[in-house]
């Protein structure tokens, strides 16, 4: 997936516009009696990678479709790259991979890209389109009909379609659902490349590890509402440190308590490190001091509350509040 990183950013605005890539406010959608999306607002900054998380049926795909004008919101406003979403031109520099990815089976992969370039109203030269197919490992299948492609290959083609018209914002709805582990790694690299090129990405994915690794910020949707939103540091908050210690003197206890709140169970100590102490010296300093105080150290294990754990906490808290 290196071809894309070599691709220059011709056609992109020289000065990045101050308007965010996505701005939406108060989005609502009802399907008959069911409320699919309820008062959803968020912003994706230029060049920012934002993850959209949530359980099945949380309204993630509906939100994405409302951003792109594929579903009409009952209420709310959307600006894409600073233009109201009601204007088709707002999507001129937006690439989209739908969750349900299907492309004209009677066209070849190269023809699908040519069609999308034409519909985007751009003149993207042939070699750039080829690079785009190469970026998703489809260079040798450019002349084959899409009808003969496997699901994974169609999803790769979908990624190429999303990237071909020199987007400033890419919206990917479950981009790895049909991909094998290599394909998933490729997509991760691709996301990092986009990030490096300052292309904003809105990523809906169930693979939390993927989101944790590439996203700057996360919005968690549950039952159509924003359950939590923020940067990964904000959301995951504190780190923790698990220690196995012997001969802990009162002075050593005091040293531990000075670093963070202590939770002791026998010889096991769990220290919650506040996020403002999130620097490289906290743990080595603590270990040196404990050794100096005569504590015998068996194990030091730094840990971070995983995004997965945090997501489950948020979703469970939401459902238990509802039951009350």
């Amino acid at each position, binding site marked *: 997936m290196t071809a894309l990183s070599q691709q220059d950013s011709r056609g992109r605005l020289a000065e990045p516009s101050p308007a965010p890539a996505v701005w939406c406010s108060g989005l609502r959608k009802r399907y008959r009696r069911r409320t699919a999306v309820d008062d959803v607002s968020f912003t994706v900054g230029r060049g920012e990678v934002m993850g959209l998380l949530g359980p099945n049926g949380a309204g993630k795909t509906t939100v994405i479709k409302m951003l792109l004008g594929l579903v009409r919101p009952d209420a709310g406003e959307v600006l894409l790259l600073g233009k109201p979403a009601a204007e088709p031109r707002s999507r001129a520099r937006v690439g*989209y991979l739908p969750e349900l990815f299907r492309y004209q089976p009677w066209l070849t992969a190269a023809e699908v890209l040519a069609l*999308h370039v034409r519909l985007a109203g751009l003149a993207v030269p042939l070699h750039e389109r080829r690079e785009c197919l190469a970026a998703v490992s489809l260079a040798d299948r450019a002349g084959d009909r899409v009808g003969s492609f496997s699901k994974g290959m169609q999803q790769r083609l979908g990624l190429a379609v999303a990237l071909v018209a020199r987007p400033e914002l890419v919206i990917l709805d479950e981009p790895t659902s049909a991909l094998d582990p290599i394909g998933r790694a490729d997509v991760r690299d691709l996301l990092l490349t986009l990030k490096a090129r300052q292309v904003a990405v809105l990523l809906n994915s169930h693979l939390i590890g993927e989101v944790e690794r590439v996203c700057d910020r996360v919005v968690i949707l549950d039952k159509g509402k924003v359950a939590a939103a923020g940067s990964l540091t904000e959301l995951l908050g504190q780190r923790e440190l698990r220690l196995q210690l012997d001969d802990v003197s009162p002075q050593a206890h005091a040293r531990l308590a000075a670093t963070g709140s202590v939770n002791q169970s026998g010889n096991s100590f769990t220290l919650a490190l506040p996020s403002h102490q999130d620097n490289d010296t906290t743990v080595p300093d603590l270990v040196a001091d404990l050794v100096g105080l005569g504590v015998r150290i068996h194990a030091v294990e730094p840990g971070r509350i995983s995004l997965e754990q945090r997501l489950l906490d948020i979703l469970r808290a939401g459902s238990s509040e509802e039951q009350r």
Partner: protein
Amino acid sequence: MTVQIVLAMAALTLREVARRRVLRSLAALTVILLSLSAWGFSRIDAEFGGLTSGEARIASAMVLNLVMFGLSLIAALGTAFLAGPTLAGEIESGIALAVLARPLRRFAVLLGKWLGLVVFGSGFVILAGIAQLVIVRVTVGYWPPQPVAGLALLAAQTTALLTLGLLLSTAISPMASGIVAVGLFGATWIAGVVGGVGDALDNESVARVGTVSGMVIPTDGLWRGAMYALQDPIVLSPELIGSPLVSQAPLTATYLAWAALWVALVLGLAGIAFQRRDL
């Protein structure tokens, strides 16, 4: 920009038709129909050698109308079953998602697909129609009085039906829209025949069935106009009044204007329905 989108979608629709074997199946059906008609017309000439020239002309004109009806039926079935999948099918499969997320208006996509189908449907009717006219000319020496008007009206009939198919496909499933469009086409044809019988019997209320159905869906009205243009005036004898293969009067300019307005209205309605649809 919008014009570019319309043209791109029209070209895409034509390419789809060409690659999806529709063209080949239609070509095969047409060749069968044309060969059968060539054989039939040559038999008229051989077996009814004793007919007067007037009788032979009546027979030829009526059989020509019958074969043309067959052609228009093939075109109607073909385009109605193409119009359905092209919109409803793409919405159902998800192909429409990636396309409609591009910077374009949905009406431009609809108009492009419509244009592609019109070019295909009309092209088919006109080419197959010319082939048929040549066959009749060679076998029995008959040449219709207004061949250009006749073929143009056949093309207009196909256009009206496929526009209706597009409207239906914005609301119901691909297969259902094809079936309903062809069903309505058949129903208006029958209503037209009933109306013709009403005319023959001087029964106003029965005749009104044809008039009303011709206004609601103009496919049969346009077909009757095409028949009139293709038939020899000699068939307008009192004995043939009410025959489903004879048209009694040419189309009025008002009716043609109404048919054009009808197509525009139905296309506009399809545009509104498509615009409002959640994908």
